């Protein structure tokens, strides 16, 4: 039974790490960190509302996360809002909403389910949620492989992509959509406060060693999956919350990468 929970959680962690790492390569390169941060907290607020209304938390987390992408994506794209302003306004709002929803959720106010939304939970990751994560990971790989050159072009520069005769907008919105979905589906396992770390750290680690965006897109999900698996093992070994353990491992990996990065060595 315990082994069954562990193996399904391990699969979930690896899938979440893979998806977060993959989408993180795009988020870091496009400077969308503030948007990802906001999405993760919006997803937390949505899931908390789900608990309050006794609706599917994952569904509401996805909707909230995608609503942020839909509302703030165009604003960020047109640079009408500075990233700090986006965070400054939406982070307190989504956290406040999330905590209020939890306060009024039936049963114990800060139950383990509710707390799990904040910093992740090894328990209760259902088969269906694993399937959803697996489907998302697979769909992302297929989508990115199919339109690899279009995604690559907008990662270099949106204007140059247009100049090359591409229409970058649908691909930019696809990245926002995938980021929102990844955040929402990783929420239960990693937690709303920490899913952002799993998105940024693996990509930031890959950026320390690689000069080629194609390789960064390849390695970032591998680093994410590795950090998630190691973090999960650590959480079991030291009885830590899963999300916290994964965030610590991925941050340690990034710190090590900065220390060893050939890019930072002065010739």
């Amino acid at each position, binding site marked *: 039974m315990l082994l069954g929970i562990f193996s399904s959680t391990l699969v979930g962690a690896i899938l979440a790490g893979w998806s977060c790492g993959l989408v993180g390569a795009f988020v870091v390169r496009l400077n969308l960190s503030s948007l990802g941060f906001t999405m993760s907290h919006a997803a937390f607020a949505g899931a908390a509302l789900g608990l309050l209304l006794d609706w599917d938390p994952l569904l509401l987390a996805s909707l909230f996360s995608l609503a942020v992408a839909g509302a703030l994506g165009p604003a960020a794209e047109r640079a009408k809002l500075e990233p700090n302003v986006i965070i400054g306004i939406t982070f307190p709002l989504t956290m406040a909403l999330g905590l209020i929803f939890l306060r009024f959720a039936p049963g114990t106010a800060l139950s383990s389910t509710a707390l799990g939304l904040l910093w992740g939970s090894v328990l209760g990751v259902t088969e269906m949620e694993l399937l959803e994560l697996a489907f998302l990971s697979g769909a992302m790989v297929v989508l990115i492989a199919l339109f690899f050159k279009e995604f690559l072009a907008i990662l270099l520069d949106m204007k140059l992509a*247009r100049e090359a005769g591409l229409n970058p907008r649908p691909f930019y919105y696809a990245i926002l959509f995938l980021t929102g979905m990844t955040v929402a589906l990783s929420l239960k396992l990693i937690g709303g406060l920490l899913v952002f770390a799993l998105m940024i750290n693996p990509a930031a680690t890959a950026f320390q060693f690689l*000069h080629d965006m194609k390789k960064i897109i390849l390695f970032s999900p591998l680093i994410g999956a590795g950090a998630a698996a190691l973090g999960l093992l650590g959480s079991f070994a030291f009885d830590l919350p899963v999300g916290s353990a994964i965030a610590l491992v991925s941050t340690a990996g990034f710190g090590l990468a900065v220390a060893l990065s050939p890019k930072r060595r002065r010739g």
Partner: protein
Amino acid sequence: MGTPVIELRGVTTIYEGERIPAIHEIDLVVERGEFLALIGPNGVGKTTLLETINGLLDHKAGAVRLFGLDVRREGHRLRRRIGYIPQAVSFPELTPFLVRDVVLMARFGRIGLIHRPRAADYRAVERALELVGSAALARRPIGKLSGGQQQKVMLARAMAKEPELLLLDEPFSNLDFVAREEIASTIVRLHEELGLTTLIVLHDLKGLPPCCQRVVLMRAGRIFRDGCPDEVLDPLILAAAYQ
């Protein structure tokens, strides 16, 4: 004379949220094989005109046609036939793209959705890098190159499209004398050897290449003078435009 490469009739472009047009009722016809310099003081609309021509900026009034086709309708397709160097392109040191990929990306529009680059695309990239004398840089990260080398890569990027029209927006800005001379001579060579229709925006009039047959001088969003260099570069005319 065949269909003009560039044809603008009464073109006005206004930036979003502004009331005063950046360019106003521009009429301009450029024939195949011409080398035309666009000059004028800062902020007169030179870059706006260039971006309106290739459809990166939408015009409010008038008609823009390239090779006889409407830019508003055929923008994506037309841009695949235009080599373009935007103003002040500079890649920061840690930009994670190799030179050959930056050049190859210029062909992504013509390759088409889902399709992968083919051998012909890679050959075009090699040729373009050789053309500007940068073949040795192909596997270097773009951010590690000097400003002059990056600008040559941008020229290779423009040439990788095997373009029928070259639009260059201040290609010599931020370059030292040596890099500037190198790029200027490469542009002139490309025009002379390939007969490429070229429109170059210049800030510094000393950079006017000898092969330039026509100069368009802008003032306050309008074309102030349009003629041969001797005519337009008259000190009195320049003084009136730059005052």
